[in-house]
């Protein structure tokens, strides 16, 4: 039991962060508004969770301009993907 809990990632304990990761691993990228609509959270809430995922190097972003409006595209990093997979595997093991 102990070794299983070790694999559970604190970064994904939060519901919004879990949601962000779930969405990003199955999409090449999503922009801020797409994530916001998908997860039904406020701007500030989403931004702070994205920031913390960025800090753990699980998520990267690319800013660009579309129709002269700033648009930020988020995608998951290699580390983020493997950490997320590990987290899901740990949950599945726990539920067994």
């Amino acid at each position, binding site marked *: 039991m102990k070794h299983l809990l070790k694999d559970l990632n604190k970064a994904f304990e939060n*519901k919004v962060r*879990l*949601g962000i990761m*779930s*969405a990003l*691993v*199955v*999409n090449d990228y*999503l*922009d801020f508004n*797409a994530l916001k*609509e*998908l*997860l039904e959270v406020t701007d500030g809430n989403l931004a702070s969770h994205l920031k913390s995922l960025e800090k753990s190097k699980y998520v990267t972003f690319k800013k660009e301009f579309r129709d002269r409006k700033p648009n930020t595209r988020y995608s998951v990093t290699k580390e983020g993907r493997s950490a997320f997979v590990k987290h*899901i595997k740990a*949950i*599945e093991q*726990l*539920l067994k």
Partner: protein
Amino acid sequence: MNQNKYLRDLQDIKDIMSRSSRFISLSGLSGIFAGLFALGGAYAAYQTVYSGQDYLNHRYAVITRESLMTLLIIALVTLALSIGAGIFFTSRETRKQNEKVWDHQTRRLLINLAIPLVTGGIVCLILLLKGFVGIIAPLTLIFYGLALVNASKYTLNEVRSLGIIEIVLGLISLQFIGYGLLVWAIGFGVMHIVYGTMMQLKYKS
């Protein structure tokens, strides 16, 4: 007690993954109507091609310049009606599920559907202008099937098997060109109605 939390987490993960990567508001009704319009179109085309011939004797497909125009018009009207029904029923379904009609899933679905479809459309137009009328019906089936298989990654799973069926029907009718229109009516008409009904029953409840 943690057990429940993690169970809920897994459920959330699955839900978000499917909602963010697949367009799931496809309405079965749009398939049924597209099928009915296709059958109507096929009947009209049949009347045009085989018009004015004795019913008892062997009948030839007769295509003149005028009937070619009529066929093109029939094809365009059928296409417009089917797309119209698709947009109408699907946007109604999307609103019902409180999702946006025009988001990045829709865009991605349509782009991936359009690439093989537009290619096929252009190929058929070129062949039609060069006088290869017989292989048009089989080719539309094949390209439509390829488009469905390509787009199925971004929507309901059923679309993939429908696409494969269309491809097989297209190949069969390419071999037996005399039955082109009949097989076309099966592929675009009957199959759409069958799949539309199936999806309507499966996802309605």
